[in-house]
């Protein structure tokens, strides 16, 4: 299967994933996949899960969002944060999930949007960690 080069760049690190066959990203309007021969483009990414297929194995990452720039020879992901599924601390994610749920349940929080964001963030991280 033909492959394409994947680079993930964040403010604190650069991950050169090398040649991959498939990348699935959380676009603002839903998931989309990229393989070789994809049209050039610039896509905004939401927070969510990124799936990378490399040498027939799947790898998962959690991100808080960013951009994907696709050209004929490479995919470049500019992300504010990226975590490999193996790097995620499940306990911490669970704790923040519980905290967010409690806050949402008690409804005395002024900043509902923020709590909801933290809820989705924790959910995504847990989902990725359990892959």
């Amino acid at each position: 299967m033909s492959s394409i080069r994947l680079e993930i760049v964040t403010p604190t690190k650069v991950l050169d994933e090398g040649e991959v066959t498939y990348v699935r990203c959380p676009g603002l309007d839903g998931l989309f996949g990229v393989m070789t021969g994809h049209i050039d483009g610039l896509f905004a990414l939401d927070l969510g899960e990124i799936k990378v297929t490399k040498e027939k194995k799947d790898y998962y990452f959690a991100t808080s969002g960013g951009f994907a720039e696709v050209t004929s020879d490479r995919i470049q992901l500019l992300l504010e944060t990226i975590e490999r599924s193996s790097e995620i601390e499940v306990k911490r994610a669970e704790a923040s999930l519980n905290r967010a749920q409690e806050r949402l349940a008690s409804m005395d929080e002024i900043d509902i949007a923020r709590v909801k964001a933290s809820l989705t963030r924790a959910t995504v991280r847990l989902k990725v960690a359990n892959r």
Partner: protein
Amino acid sequence: MANLKIIRERIKSIQNIQKVTKAMKMVAAAKLRRSQERMEQARPYEERLSGVILSLLPDVERNLLPLLDVREVNRVAYVVVTSDRGFAGAFNANVIRRTEEEIRVLGKEKVDIFCIGRKGRDYFKKRSYTIIEEQIEFWNDLSFEHAIKFGNSIISHFTNGVVDEVRVVYNWFKNVANQELRVERLLPLVYDEEKVALVDRLYEPSKEQLVRSLIPRHLNVEMWKYLLESFASEQAARMVAMDNATENAGELIRDLKLKFNKARQASITKEVLEIVSGAEALANA
């Protein structure tokens, strides 16, 4: 004899000072290495994001985006990046002096200040400038989240129309021996209209929406860059300052030791003279 004792005590106290400056120098050197690494790690993201943004901007209607809005400049915000601690040579003094000069041109009442770092905060607070926000005591656990926080509050200050321009005064890290004081305009965003690299590609969602979400991220990263540059500069400045201090202390100690030995010899000579003349007086009697 009293003289000897005083000199001995001085030597001792200067040796203690030297130990402290040496330790500070070493700490600064370690921190400098770490912050330089961080700067290098941040660079690719900054460069690529800027690349993307600059390729998009000329294609977008300028007045659609509040952050590109060039207005008549009535009120300016200064982001003053200083350190929390001193002992770093002219590091903070340079930033403060330059900021004051700039403010004098505009008039104190037309300027809002965002203080990053304790030194600048203390200075401008004492002189009752308008401080919108202050952030101190965070340098030791500096993270990208700080940049996001600063970035967001600066952006909202600008988009709310309170200020028409945002400028940053900070120390740019040239190399270990040199830090360059820089004043840069953060907002409104400017770009070179000439450099249009039109590329035929797919945009998802629309170009305008992309730019709208790209720009705040770009500003966060710029903010991050300023923080990292300043932090590295601070450590470098402190390292150099403490190196000089250690050297000066060494010189002082050398001088004092010479003095001490001279005084010691003088007192011995005096004693020998006294004994000899005493013995002679006895013999003559």
